[in-house]
């Protein structure tokens, strides 16, 4: 079964540093997403991406965040200057049709810890 992969699985960084989280969506999917989940809290939507551009973004997704699909397979989330409150699990997802039903597939997540 196809799957979404994410690297790294864990990342520790110093406050103020830039981080890039990488995702490889399922190859024939067209919609890509980033979500985050602060430990013990609910999941939060960050951004969706379609046709090589952002289609929607939440209030969380400010100027410190950016997304890119640099080479047609990877889908990256960059945080320019990390803050302590960026510590969370970051999930990538892609969506496509399974039969007639649109289905989202999630990656295993990247746990980011900002010190």
């Amino acid at each position, binding site marked *: 079964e196809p799957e979404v992969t994410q690297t790294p699985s864990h990342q520790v960084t110093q406050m103020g540093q830039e981080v890039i989280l990488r995702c490889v969506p399922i190859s024939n999917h067209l919609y890509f997403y980033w979500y985050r989940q602060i430990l013990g809290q609910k*999941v939060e939507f960050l951004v969706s991406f379609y046709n090589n551009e952002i289609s*929607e973004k939440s209030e969380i997704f400010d100027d410190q965040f950016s997304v890119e699909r640099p080479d047609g397979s990877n889908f990256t989330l960059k945080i320019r200057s990390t803050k302590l409150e960026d510590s969370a699990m970051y*999930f990538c997802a892609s969506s496509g049709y399974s039969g007639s039903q*649109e289905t989202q597939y*999630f990656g*295993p997540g990247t746990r980011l810890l900002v010190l």
Partner: protein
Amino acid sequence: AQKVTQAQTEISVVEKEDVTLDCVYETRDTTYYLFWYKQPPSGELVFLIRRNSFDEQNEISGRYSWNFQKSTSSFNFTITASQVVDSAVYFCALSDDYGQNFVFGPGTRLSVLP
């Protein structure tokens, strides 16, 4: 503003019992999408269903079923004959027609005891 309420913070049932997880939403949109996700103890997220607001038919998938009631703004999820592997946090979510204002509920932690 969009809002999703999952009033049940935690539920415990014994294996083989049926259990219903409640989800109530608020939106001013006439077209919107509702979702359910599962997050087992291992932490990954699993998509379960997406439902368009115009489709009020109940959905059944194996032991899972969903009851969408527009009149009460609810999208409840029932697990029939629960199993230990159903133990997880279940999130209900809502988005508008364009996928903006994507809001998750706080989640319901379901524990199925053997």
